[in-house]
């Protein structure tokens, strides 16, 4: 069901397989010992409203460029072996995968730090926007920390 391609950062409509993404990263080095993964999924409620659907839009090219910058900074600043990032766009149902960050380190400490930094930096710097569909209609969402 997935298409873990050669590219370490991707924005795509299709779902991804967490297992495939991890197995792909494992091939990078035999010294990976700790892999920390963040998987963001579609929640059913937000600020008391029931959400029925999500829609993500991105600024093509700029979004990919920001993700690649983010990946390279994570590798350099935290000393991890590698990182991959996949973000979906288009319509996404509740419970479905939205975003995946895989941080691979020799040890776990740096992988945890890099992964947590990366998701918060992604939200801050990557031109992607979320629209929520609730019973009250469609709303473009303001950022959350």
């Amino acid at each position, binding site marked *: 069901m997935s298409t873990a391609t050669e590219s370490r950062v991707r924005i795509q409509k299709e779902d991804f397989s967490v297992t495939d993404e991890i197995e792909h990263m494992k091939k990078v080095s035999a010294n990976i010992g700790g892999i920390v993964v963040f998987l*963001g*999924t*579609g*929640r059913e409620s937000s600020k008391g409203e029931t959400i029925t659907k999500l829609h*993500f*839009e*991105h*600024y093509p*090219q*700029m*979004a990919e*460029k920001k993700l690649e910058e983010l990946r390279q900074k994570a590798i350099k600043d935290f000393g991890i072996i590698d990182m991959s990032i996949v*973000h979906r766009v288009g319509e996404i149902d509740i419970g479905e995968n*939205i*975003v995946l960050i895989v941080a691979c380190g020799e040890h776990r400490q740096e992988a945890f730090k890099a992964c947590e930094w990366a*998701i918060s930096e*992604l*939200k*801050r*710097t*990557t*031109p*992607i*926007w*979320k*629209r929520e569909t609730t019973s009250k209609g469609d709303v*473009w*969402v*303001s*950022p*959350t920390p």
Partner: protein
Amino acid sequence: MIKVKYFASLKTMAGKEEDRFDLGRETTVLKLSEAIGKTSPAIGEMVREKKVMVSVNQDVVLPDAVIHDGDEVALLPPFSGGAI
């Protein structure tokens, strides 16, 4: 010509995905916001009040940035990717 791209809520407000403006060889974000304001006053104001970020050729710029003929400008509402 300068190409201006609208995203998310701004696309809805503008009623279109992009616009083109001829503002000579060199202009500023402020002057561009006034040109946009002629058809979409609310958007022009949001740019001047820094409620949206502005990118030129896919790099976020400061409000006093210079824009050249042929540049791609985008108006970027606050980002909300990354799930929760």
